[in-house]
């Protein structure tokens, strides 16, 4: 064994972190670092790319390489980083706002392009950082600071969206399922091509307080109740499905990743055809 523990990837001097008591982000950061340790990856081999948001602050606590970019662009930066040095393990940490609201375009294109990197999206159903406004995953009629009467828009199923965009590996769990989460992240990082882990997460301060309960424990229990394994989910009625979401691996394909395909098609010795 490598001797790495989750602490090998944390920057102790920056702790305690800024997240609220009971915020799911801490649990997910723990799972991520545990996964890195179990994969025996040196901090020097890993680039953690973050956007802007509560979860986007994760890099501040990490001792891996980090690239803390602009809001919504994490996957575009990550794409450049991975193609700039394909030997690096590149993991993009994004909130639901980052990933599929402002960042939706990069999300679908990274999935389609099949860049060999991993996206870990913490979906807390709102913008935590800016004070709990609704995002593209807030469920219909969800109460937030910009939808005091409830949103008039339904939220994305971002795993389905990734699948339709062509993602190679798609999995979902919650921050309640801490062990499953760690294993899922391991599997995603090990999978070649674009892999997505959606972690339905708990923001007790905003989404929880407005829609469920401000107690972190109640929020986690709520997540536990909503999450059903995909097989079971498929057997549910539409009405039941509307109240739940499927967890576990949802897509598992083996398309070659962009870089592999690019190198196959564009050999240096090959004279370009087409327009001369």
């Amino acid at each position, binding site marked *: 064994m490598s001797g790495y523990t989750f602490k090998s990837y944390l*920057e102790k001097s920056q702790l305690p972190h800024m997240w609220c008591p009971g915020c799911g982000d801490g649990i997910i950061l723990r799972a991520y670092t545990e996964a890195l340790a179990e994969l025996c990856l040196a901090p020097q081999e890993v*680039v953690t790319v973050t956007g802007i948001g509560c979860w986007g602050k994760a890099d501040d606590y990490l001792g891996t390489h980090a690239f803390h*970019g602009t809001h919504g662009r994490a996957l575009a930066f990550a794409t*450049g980083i991975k193609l700039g040095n394909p*030997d*690096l393990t590149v993991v993009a940490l994004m909130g639901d706002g980052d990933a599929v609201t402002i960042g939706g375009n990069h999300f679908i294109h990274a999935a389609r392009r099949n860049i060999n990197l991993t996206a870990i999206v913490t979906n807390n159903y709102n913008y935590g950082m800016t004070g709990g406004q609704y995002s593209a995953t807030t469920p219909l009629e969800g109460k937030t600071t910009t939808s005091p009467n409830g949103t008039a828009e339904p939220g994305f199923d971002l795993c389905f969206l990734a699948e339709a965009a062509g993602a190679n590996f798609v999995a979902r769990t919650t921050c309640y399922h801490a062990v499953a989460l760690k294993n899922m992240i391991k599997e995603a990082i090990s999978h070649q091509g674009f892999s997505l882990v959606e972690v339905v997460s708990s923001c007790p301060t905003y989404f929880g307080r407005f829609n469920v309960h401000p107690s972190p424990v109640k929020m986690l229990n709520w997540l536990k109740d909503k999450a059903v394994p995909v097989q079971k989910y498929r057997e549910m009625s539409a009405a039941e499905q509307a109240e739940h979401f499927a967890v576990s691996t949802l897509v598992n394909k083996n398309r070659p990743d962009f870089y592999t395909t690019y190198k196959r098609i564009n050999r240096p010795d090959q004279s*370009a055809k087409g327009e001369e």
Partner: protein
Amino acid sequence: MQGNEACVYAAIDCGARFYAGYPITPSSEIAELSAKYLPKVNGIYLQMEDELGSIAAIIGASAAGKKSFTATSGPGFSLMQENLGMAIYAEVPCVIINVQRNGPSTGLATRPGQGDVMQARWGTHGDHPIIVLSPSSVQECYDLTIRAFNLSEKYRIPVILLSDEVIGHMRESLTIPEVEDLIIINRKLPLVPAQGFKPYTPEEDLVPAIPPFGTGYIVHISSSCHDESGYSHNAPQTADNLVRRLHKKIEANQEDIVQVEWFGPEDAELTIIAYGVISRTAKQVVINAQANGLSVNLLRLITHWPFPDEQVTQALKKARAVLIPELNLGQVVQEVHRLNSFNTPVYQLSRIDGEIILPSQIMQKVEEVLK
């Protein structure tokens, strides 16, 4: 060879191995030729979903160690502004080629313009420095692309090559130097051990030696206010230090960065200040004027930003009058006014109809002024 093509040759010759972009007239040849030539040198051409992603991808690839570039025109350049600020603030080298067309908005997409000079300086939010170069020939498309990469790597700042539709599509002959004659500057690497390394520690030249990801040093790159470690830090002093240093590393090196060309008689009565394609019209005018017994010279701006304050001041001091012909309603002319403590008469000649300024137009103005 076309101006746009010369840019691609130069980028490859000075070691660029990553292009990400989104096609747009009149820069698309840069994308097309990058797609064709980069694979031959084991480089990568990546067509991104938009310009926001394009600049993000080159910033990422640069952080991972590849010299990287993109090309665009007005609308795409506008979309790059947020991440341009990110690259400036986080000190990631990269080169952005803006082949200017007639704007604003979609405008006349296939016609030349010089309307992005001020945008190149001020387009992103917040206080920031920038380096902008402006070629006026195919040869200079090559030479200044090399120079853009060199300055970018040296000062860890994005450099913008502000070309235009005429220069980009113009064909004239180009002399490509032997590889061994090329001066190529690569970003410096840290001399300190990896243990306890802080990527944003400035060296004597105020530029930090940030290694690429993956060399053993842990590197933390950030768009938020950060201290030398690269981690977020919100103290007022940290913010002040960072932004002032970013400016100082450029200001302190004005002499290295600012380039102009003087053309024509040294002590002319009238100095034309011009750049890009219009500087060629101006050169013709200098020649014609000489033949007509008029005393005219040209100060050609090769570096747009930081602005050649010293040289322009000199022009204002020496000449009886200064004339600034531009393919816009007056952008550089404002900077000239800013420096005009001599109250030298400053004349402006604008053309914004998608056509370039003719020698006869400048000549007429010259005659008016010198009469």
